[in-house]
């Protein structure tokens, strides 16, 4: 059974509907990537899963329906969402951001996990007492991911982690994500516009177009698919 499955999901903002009848399964311990152009509905899809917007349809997570739960309950159920633009607490220090990520867990667990995740992001360790708002874009993304991991989630949702980052930084970030999955078996659903690096670490992927899934395949075949290469990978 899939860790996460979406059936006939519709969602949007006010009267404007963005997603139409989305069917999606995310398997445990897999990294799945959602590709799509601007406005295809990628961010809306993640928001529908994390309950930060209204949605209709069925969402099962670990065998439990979560489509009627509030965003807070979904966090508690074990889905961590790293929003687009990172959403770090700019006024708080790096350490406080990390600790707040473990808000639903005990202090002892938080201390233990903090050490573990900081080994994946050593840059953050040097900046623990610095204000999050003063970090570089790449560091903020690392912080947002660390904060999400502090929840000890079963599923990590990542919304365009590469946004605004230099390719070399993005590459390092995806390698770290792959290493985290390797070591912990964390399931991830990653939304990306720049697809090459994401497909390198992913197991499978779907292509979203105008709020509908038009293609689903293994990451390898997607990377070799002419259409995908032309539109999303920038090869002519």
């Amino acid at each position, binding site marked *: 059974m899939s860790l996460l499955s979406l059936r006939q999901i519709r969602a949007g903002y006010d009267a404007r509907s963005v997603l139409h009848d989305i069917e999606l399964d995310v398997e445990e311990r897999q990294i799945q990537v959602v590709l799509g152009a601007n406005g295809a509905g990628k961010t809306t899809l993640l928001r529908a899963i*994390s309950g*930060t917007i209204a949605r209709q349809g069925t969402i099962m997570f670990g065998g439990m329906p979560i489509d009627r739960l509030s*965003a*807070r309950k979904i*966090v*508690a159920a074990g889905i*961590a*969402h790293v*929003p687009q633009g990172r*959403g*770090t*607490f*700019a*006024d*708080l220090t790096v350490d*406080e951001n990390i*600790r*707040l*990520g473990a*808000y*639903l867990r005990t*202090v002892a667990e938080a201390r233990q996990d903090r050490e573990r995740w900081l080994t994946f992001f050593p840059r953050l360790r040097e900046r623990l007492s610095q204000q999050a*708002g003063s970090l570089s874009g790449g560091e903020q993304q690392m912080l947002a991911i660390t*904060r*999400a991991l502090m*929840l000890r989630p079963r599923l990590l949702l990542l919304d365009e982690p590469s946004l605004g980052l230099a390719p070399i930084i993005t590459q390092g970030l995806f390698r770290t994500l792959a290493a985290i999955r390797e070591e912990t078996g964390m399931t991830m659903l990653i939304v990306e516009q720049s697809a090459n690096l994401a497909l390198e670490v992913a197991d499978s992927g779907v292509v979203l177009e105008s709020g509908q899934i038009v293609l689903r395949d293994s990451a390898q075949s997607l990377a070799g698919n002419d259409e995908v290469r032309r539109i999303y990978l920038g090869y002519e």
Partner: protein
Amino acid sequence: MTLFASQIVDGLADGAIYASLALALVFSYRSTGIVNFAQGEMAMLSAYLVWQLMAWGLPLIPAVLVSIVVSFIAGTLLYASIVKPLSHASLLTVVSVLIGLYLALNSLAGFIWTYTIKPLPSLFPKAHLQFGSFSVSAETAGIIVVVGLVLLLLYLLFETTKVGLAMRGAASTPDSAVLVGVSVPVMLLIGWGIAAALGALSGILVAPRVFLNPTMMFGVIIYAFAAATLGGFDSIVGAVVGGLLVGVVENLVGTYVPWIGPDLKIIVALVLIFGTLLIKPDGLFGRKKVVRL
């Protein structure tokens, strides 16, 4: 020299009162972006509540504690009943409603307790503490110590507890606070409760000096606005430093500038507000609003 020193110390005591009311303003502003114009009137009602409880036979200290707890609850109710439903309303609507609340609370106090002034006993004895040639009244010293302790408690709440951290997170970036499992409305509710309790403290400390009457907070709220503006409206440290500065400057100007004297002292507050907005609109400790694209 002794006059100068005692003016400074008196100024710090006044400043501590302004600081607690300024902190109340800053708390509600930081968490919800709303300046609570009725904060002073709520504080006035808190002071009246102490008087009423004492009239019913409660001793001073328990009456003060009950009033502060009731004020906390009143602050949370204000948030839940008025502020939260207005969270998507226009600024003009919110300002109108809060000014309406100001007038309503003011009239309510007059209606219940009349406009005749009433004495409220001080929390501190009428003694003087002697340090060598320098003497300070127990009230002045007491105010500074009480506000100092409250500030210390707030510091511990925000810096060392999980709830405090969650409150700061909710005020800073509410969308992300939800994503780590923090209930933002509950945090804002607590924030408005603390603001009302701090306001109550300022009202209870100031009432014995000016006597209880429905307009007793008028001067204090102006000084508190000056303090919050000077410190930067979104800074907790700024509110405290601003409050102390305003208190000291007000006392020194009132004593040493003959044509101002005690009657025109309020001009000092207005000049400080105006000057800050003109020269450094974000205040001494305020954050410049920078948006990273």
